[in-house]
C-alpha cells in the first residue's frame, strides 16, 4: 500500500472532497504537413474559414455560459480571444500561404500562429509574455476544429473526479461540470485566478498553487482535497479516510439541522434583531448570499475587478458590476469597500519589505487620486438604487477620513454638475482594523455613518502577528483579551455617537464569539455566506442580558485560552444546544 503524502497549496475554495484523480492535460495538437493539389486549394481555404467560424461559435457559447454563471464583465477576456481569432491579417496570411505553399491549412495556420507566439514570448514584459497562452488557447481551438478533434475533454470528465492539472485555461475552467468534478488541484494559480473564481462560484473545493504537483501524482489515484486547509492528501491512510468521512458526515448532518435557519430572521430569543449579512468577493456570489439567507452584503470586496484584469477597470465596467449587485440585492443593503490592494499589485515594479505595514489599501487610493475617483464615481452612480453604502479599508488616522471626505465631496459635486443622479444620503463607513483607529474611535465616530470591524486584520495588527508565518501563527488568536478590549472600545464609541457598528471577519461566524460580540452590542455580523445559517441558529438561541453578562465576564481574563475556556463553559450553561454547532 502506497504511503500517505500531504501536498500543500493555497486554499481557494472551501470544502472537502474525496475522489479519483483525473489528470487533465491540454496536449499540444500534433500537426502534419500535407501537400495539396492545386485544384483543391480553394477547398482548403474554405475548410480553414469554416474552422474559424466554428471556433468563433464555440467561444461565443463559452462566453455566454460564463456570463450566466459568473456574471458581470468577467467574460471580457474572451472578447480579446475572439478578436485574435478574427484577426484579418492572420486569416488573410493563412489563406494566401495555403495557396502559395500548396500546403494543408493545419500546417500553415500552426506556422503563422507560432510566428506570433514566438515573437510575443521574446518580450521581457511579464504581461505580454503571458499572452502567449491566450494565443495558443485560441490557436489550438482552431487546430482541433480543423482536425475534427473534440476540444472539450473537460466536459466529459468521469464521475467522482478530482481534476488535477498544471493549469486550467479560463475558457476550460468555465466548462467544468460540478456534478462530476468533486475537487480541483493545480500547480499554477492563486486566489484570484480564473480557476479559483470558477471553483468558488460552483462551490467545488479547490487547492491551487501546489508546487511540483504533476510530478507527484498519477491518474486514478485516490486523493482527498481539503479546501479549508489548502492541502491535497495522496493515498490517504485508513485512519485519515475515516476521520475525513466522519468530518464530512458531521458537516452534512449539521447542514441538515441548520438549513431551515436560512429562511428565519436573525432575532434573539428576547427579540433583538441582528443584521446578518454576507462577505463576498465576486458578483456571482450574490446567489450564495441570498440562498443562505443573508440580509445584505456586509462586505463586497472590489479587488477582483482589478486583479483579474491586471489593471484598473474603467468607471463604466465598475459601475455595471456595482449596479447589478445593488439591483440583485434590493431591498437589502450592499456595502462596497474600495480597493484593498497592496502597492505591488497596482505597480508591479513596486516592492517593499513589509507590505502589511506598507503602502496598501486607502493609502494607495489617497495617493492615486484619479484611480480612486474613478471608483468613487462608479460606486456613487450605483447608489441610485438607494441601498448602496461605501466603506474605506485600513483607516489608521483621522486625517485620512478628512482627505477621503474632501475627495468624496469633490466627486459628488462633479456628478451634480454633470446632472448624474446618486444617493445624496449614501452612508459613509470605515473599516476598523488598526489599533490606532480603535483607540481614536470616539473621534472617528463623529466623522462617519458606521464602523465595520475587520477582525482578522485587527488581530494581526494588535498582536503584531503575521498568521501566514507558520513559526508564529499559533500566536494569532481572535480571542486575545487585547483584541476583545479594542472591539469593545470601538462598539462603545460608535454607539456614543449614534452610529451602527458591524464586524466582518472570521470572528463574526464563530459560534463561540457570536454571544460575546452581541453582548458587546454589535449591530451587524457579516460573514461567508455558507456560515450564515449557523450564525442565525446561534442568535436565535440567545438572550441579550445573558450575552451582556458573558461579555462582561470575558473582559476579565489574561489570556486567549482563558477566554475560550470561559466562553465554552458559560455558553454551554446558559444556552444549551449551541455546543452542537461549535466545530
Amino acid at each position, binding site marked *: 500500500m502506497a504511503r500517505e503524502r500531504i501536498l500543500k497549496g493555497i486554499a481557494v475554495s472551501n470544502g472537502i472532497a474525496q475522489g479519483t484523480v483525473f489528470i487533465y492535460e491540454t496536449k499540444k495538437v500534433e500537426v502534419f504537413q500535407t501537400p495539396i493539389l492545386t485544384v483543391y486549394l480553394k477547398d482548403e481555404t474554405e475548410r480553414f474559414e469554416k474552422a474559424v467560424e466554428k471556433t468563433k461559435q464555440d467561444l461565443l457559447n463559452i462566453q455566454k455560459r460564463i456570463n450566466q454563471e459568473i456574471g458581470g464583465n468577467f467574460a471580457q477576456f474572451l472578447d480579446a480571444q475572439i478578436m*485574435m481569432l478574427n484577426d484579418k491579417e492572420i486569416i488573410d496570411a493563412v489563406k494566401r500561404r495555403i495557396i502559395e505553399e500548396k500546403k494543408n491549412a493545419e500546417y500553415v495556420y500552426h506556422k503563422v500562429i507560432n510566428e506570433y507566439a514566438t515573437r510575443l514570448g521574446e518580450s521581457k514584459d511579464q504581461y505580454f509574455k503571458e499572452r502567449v497562452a491566450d494565443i495558443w488557447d485560441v490557436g489550438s481551438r482552431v487546430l482541433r476544429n480543423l482536425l475534427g478533434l473534440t476540444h472539450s475533454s473537460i466536459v466529459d470528465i468521469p464521475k467522482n473526479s478530482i481534476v488535477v492539472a498544471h493549469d486550467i485555461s479560463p475558457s476550460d475552467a468555465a466548462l467544468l461540470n460540478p456534478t462530476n468534478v468533486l475537487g480541483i488541484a493545480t500547480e499554477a494559480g492563486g486566489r484570484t485566478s480564473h480557476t479559483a473564481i470558477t471553483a468558488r462560484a460552483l462551490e467545488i473545493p479547490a487547492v491551487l498553487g501546489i508546487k511540483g504537483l504533476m510530478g507527484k501524482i498519477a491518474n486514478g489515484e485516490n486523493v482527498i482535497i481539503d479546501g479549508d486547509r489548502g492541502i491535497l492528501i495522496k493515498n490517504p491512510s485508513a485512519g485519515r479516510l475515516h476521520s475525513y468521512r466522519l468530518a464530512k458526515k458531521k458537516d452534512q448532518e449539521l447542514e441538515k439541522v441548520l438549513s431551515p435557519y436560512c429562511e428565519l430572521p436573525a432575532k434573539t430569543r428576547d427579540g433583538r434583531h441582528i443584521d446578518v449579512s454576507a462577505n463576498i468577493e465576486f458578483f456571482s456570489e450574490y446567489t450564495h448570499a441570498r440562498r443562505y439567507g443573508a440580509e445584505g452584503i456586509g462586505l463586497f470586496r472590489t479587488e477582483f475587478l482589478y486583479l483579474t484584469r491586471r489593471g484598473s477597470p474603467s468607471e463604466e465596467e465598475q459601475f455595471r458590476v456595482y449596479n447589478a449587485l445593488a439591483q440583485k440585492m434590493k431591498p437589502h443593503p450592499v456595502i462596497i469597500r474600495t480597493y484593498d490592494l497592496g502597492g505591488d499589485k497596482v505597480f508591479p515594479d513596486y516592492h517593499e519589505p513589509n507590505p502589511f505595514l506598507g503602502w496598501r489599501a486607502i493609502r494607495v487610493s489617497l495617493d492615486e487620486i484619479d484611480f480612486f475617483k474613478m471608483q468613487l464615481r462608479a460606486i456613487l452612480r450605483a447608489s441610485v438604487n438607494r441601498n448602496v453604502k461605501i466603506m474605506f479599508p485600513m483607516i489608521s488616522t483621522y486625517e485620512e477620513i478628512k482627505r477621503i471626505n474632501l475627495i468624496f465631496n469633490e466627486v459628488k459635486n462633479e456628478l451634480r454638475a454633470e446632472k448624474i443622479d446618486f444617493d445624496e444620503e449614501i452612508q459613509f463607513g470605515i473599516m476598523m482594523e488598526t489599533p490606532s483607529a480603535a483607540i481614536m474611535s470616539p473621534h472617528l465616530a463623529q466623522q462617519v455613518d458606521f464602523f465595520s470591524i475587520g477582525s482578522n486584520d485587527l488581530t494581526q495588527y494588535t498582536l503584531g502577528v503575521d498568521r501566514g508565518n507558520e513559526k508564529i501563527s499559533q500566536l494569532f488568536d481572535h480571542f486575545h483579551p487585547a483584541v476583545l478590549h479594542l472591539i469593545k472600545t470601538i462598539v462603545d464609541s460608535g454607539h456614543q455617537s449614534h452610529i451602527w457598528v458591524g464586524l466582518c471577519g472570521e470572528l463574526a461566524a464563530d459560534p463561540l464569539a457570536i454571544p460575546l460580540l452581541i453582548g458587546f452590542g454589535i449591530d451587524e455580523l457579516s460573514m461567508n455566506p455558507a456560515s450564515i445559517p449557523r450564525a442565525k441558529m446561534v442568535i436565535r438561541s440567545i438572550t441579550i442580558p445573558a450575552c451582556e453578562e458573558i461579555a462582561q465576564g470575558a473582559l476579565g481574563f489574561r489570556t486567549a485560552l482563558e477566554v475560550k475556556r470561559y466562553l465554552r463553559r458559560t455558553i454551554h450553561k446558559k444556552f444549551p444546544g449551541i455546543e452542537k454547532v461549535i466545530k
Partner: protein
Amino acid sequence: MIKEKITILDENGLHALPASRFVKLAEKFESNVTLKKGDIEVSGKSIMGILTLACEKGSTVILSCDGKDEKEALKALRKILEGQD
C-alpha cells in the same frame, strides 16, 4: 500619408483591452493604419500584430495613417495610444 511618434503612457502598456479598442476603432477608417516599434511594423487593424509589438509603458511607437480619412484616423487613434480615451 501622415505619421506621428507617440509614447505609451498607460501603466500596463498597450495591453489586450486598449489594443482591442484600438483595432475596433482602426477598422472604422478607410485608411491604412500601421504601428511601428523599432524595426517591426504591423497593421493597426490586427490585434495579434499589435500585441506582438509588446508595447510596455514608456515605449515609443510610430503611428501612420494613409488614405482619404487619414487625418481623422490619426487624431482618434492617437488618443487611445496616449490613454486619453
